């Protein structure tokens, strides 16, 4: 290897790292947090201490119970204090016992656990079943009304890595368990779905075939995950059976059971536009529906059925409901800070969202009354100030977004902003620093999205119908890919009039941040749901 290669490779890494500087406090925080945690040591002294402590506590408890047995009122079986926040747990509503069940997941920086919790609408109860599935995260769980139990499948378990210095990694597991309200039972089906957990599969009850359905992908063994295969399996209470489908959704989606139907919500790119398609299940095959309003790209989301209002509720960065024929975006004044574990809980007659299912940063309980979310139970942790729970950044008006950018971006000039928004109104979500910014403008139904800002973007390439051109634009600074006075204009699907499209150029100006400046300031405008004419109305309105 020559020094020249080394220099060039290192320069490329330096370039990458300049956009990801080492946080100054990372060393202190990491070391301090680690040292504050207990070390693994010989278990013997701890076991002795634990036994002694248990005996003392038992003795004290016996004395107290004996003393106060006749004088104290009955205490509820549980507590109003919620479990510690947890990410990637399994949860569902156990109709037979009227409780929301939460199993496993990881809390904070600790590994996944085996805890089973229930919530009855008021009290949390940590159960101590004699048998439990092993500690895991990303397991999937659903209530089976045909057998009056809760079914849990698979997940990722921590496993030791062989070799010196090895610690652990996650590995998929394909076991099946049922919960009867008191204990777990491991089932020994003859067939095991080879579903992997690169993507979280989906498990739900199918009211048409009256069985539990599992939809997921086989474990991938390649970096690009191109070898994964979509599969559907059915659970009849005893064994799994693979279903042969004429059309199988090709992207990971989430199934959600309605009153007497079953939907699959799946991210898709249709006509150069990203959205979430709605599929319907007829008991043997899937069909893509064409509702008046489609869901936008959802990212991380939760979904469950509200039998009181006869709607499917979807919680993402917005709240959506499905009335059986189309989607409606709701406009609550309050929204959970994160996408939690969703379930309809009979005792409160509402869909609830507990905690933060993606990053486990909070444990608040919210309830959905059909038009608004309200806080049912406060959490026990204070989320960090920059916490958005992976989900919810409140939108602001277009004018407020502009004011925020003008007041915040001080180190880069010029600061341009669009002033024309076709077919509005739009709201805006803004991220701004002293150096740069990005604003996402969205129409009410999220079917038109405009993204604009100072950013060196690297959008993915398009398909066969994509078109990449150079267009005269402003007095752009020349790049290798576009001469002076030209911008790069890209349309993802020229056969679709409202395809995703973007415009990228180097605006004459200055910035104290070298990553935003290369003889000019990087600007990027992207839109979906807008025609070519509308897109240029926005582009030509920059001020």
């Amino acid at each position, binding site marked *: *290897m020559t020094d020249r290669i080394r220099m060039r490779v290192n320069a490329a890494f330096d370039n*990458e790292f300049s956009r990801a500087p*080492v946080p100054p406090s990372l060393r202190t925080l990491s070391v301090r947090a680690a040292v504050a945690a207990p070390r*693994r040591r010989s278990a013997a002294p701890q076991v002795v201490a634990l036994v002694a402590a248990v005996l003392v506590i038992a003795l004290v408890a016996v004395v107290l119970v004996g003393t106060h047995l006749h004088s104290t009122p009955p205490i509820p079986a549980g507590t109003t204090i919620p479990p510690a926040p947890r990410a990637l747990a399994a949860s569902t509503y156990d109709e037979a016992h009227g409780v929301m069940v939460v199993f496993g997941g990881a809390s904070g920086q600790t590994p996944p656990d085996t805890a089973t919790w229930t919530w009855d609408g008021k009290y949390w109860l940590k159960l101590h079943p004699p048998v439990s599935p092993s500690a895991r995260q990303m397991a999937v769980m659903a209530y089976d009304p045909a057998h009056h139990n809760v079914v849990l499948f698979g997940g990722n378990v921590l496993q030791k890595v062989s070799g010196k210095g090895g610690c652990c*990694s996650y590995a998929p597991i394909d076991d099946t368990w049922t919960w009867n309200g008191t204990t777990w039972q491991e089932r020994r089906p003859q067939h095991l779905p080879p579903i992997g*957990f690169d993507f979280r599969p989906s498990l739900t009850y199918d009211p048409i075939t009256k069985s539990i359905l599992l939809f997921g992908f086989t474990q991938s063994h390649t*970096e690009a995950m191109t070898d994964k295969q979509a599969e559907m399996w059915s659970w009849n209470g005893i064994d799994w059976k693979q279903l042969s489908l004429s059309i199988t959704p090709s992207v990971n989606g989430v199934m959600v059971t309605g009153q007497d139907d079953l939907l699959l919500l799946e991210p898709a790119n249709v006509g150069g536009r990203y959205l979430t398609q709605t599929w319907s299940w007829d008991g043997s095959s899937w069909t893509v529906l064409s509702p008046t309003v489609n869901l936008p790209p959802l990212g991380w989301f939760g979904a469950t059925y509200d039998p009181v209002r006869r709607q499917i509720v979807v919680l993402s960065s917005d709240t959506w409901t499905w009335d059986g024929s189309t989607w409606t975006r709701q406009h609550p004044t309050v929204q959970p800070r994160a996408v939690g574990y969703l379930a309809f809980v009979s005792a409160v007659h509402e869909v609830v969202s507990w905690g933060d299912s*993606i990053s486990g940063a909070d444990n608040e309980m919210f309830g959905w009354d059909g038009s608004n979310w309200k806080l049912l139970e406060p959490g026990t942790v204070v989320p960090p100030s920059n916490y958005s729970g992976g989900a919810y950044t409140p939108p602001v008006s277009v004018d407020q977004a502009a004011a925020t950018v003008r007041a915040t971006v001080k180190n880069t000039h010029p600061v341009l902003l669009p002033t024309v928004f076709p077919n509005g109104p739009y709201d805006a979500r803004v991220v701004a620093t002293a150096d740069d910014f990005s604003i996402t403008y969205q129409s009410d139904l999220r079917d038109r999205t405009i993204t604009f800002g100072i950013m060196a973007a690297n959008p993915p390439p398009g398909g066969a119908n994509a078109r990449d051109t150079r267009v005269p634009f402003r007095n752009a600074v020349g790049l290798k890919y576009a001469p002076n006075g030209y911008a790069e204009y890209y349309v*993802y699907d020229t056969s679709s009039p409202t395809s*995703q499209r973007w415009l990228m150029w180097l605006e004459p100006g200055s910035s104290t941040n070298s990553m935003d400046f290369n003889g000019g300031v990087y600007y990027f405008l992207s839109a979906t749901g807008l025609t070519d004419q509308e897109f240029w109305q926005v582009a030509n309105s920059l001020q």
Partner: protein
Amino acid sequence: MVTSAIGQAAADREADFDALVGPLIEPAFKLAVVFLRDPHEAEDAVQEATLKAWRGLDRLRDEKAARAWFLSIVANQCRSMRRSRWWSVLRMESPLRDDVERPPDDRLDLTREMSRLPLTDRAALFLFFYLDLPIAEVARVLKISPQAAKSRVHRAVEKLRLGMEVAK
């Protein structure tokens, strides 16, 4: 007095551990960025790996091997996070990615070509060229044989050359 002694012991413990892994936090963070391409996730990975290193400290027999030992924990953590966080795949499919620099000149073309490499190849390049680790140590961090580490570095360099020729 007792409280103060405990406090002193805790401070000593922190200082000892900091002396061992503190200097490795920066390279660990960069390795995590190479793997995860997200500074926030990289930060999480390093914090989690540091916790695991602390808990598994008894398994480190030779302090001279601390660098490979710690970086291998970081690499493991990154792999686990990539595997368990399926939403990162969704994010990659989203129409916008501003996490990678768009290359305006020849120097940055290499950045683009490197971003197309498999993560394990990028990690091998980072460890071998950027951290200047010997091949044997690259192998220990990536938990592969020295021969495999060597061929991975060579293969990555060849891919970069090929990629750059196509770009021209």
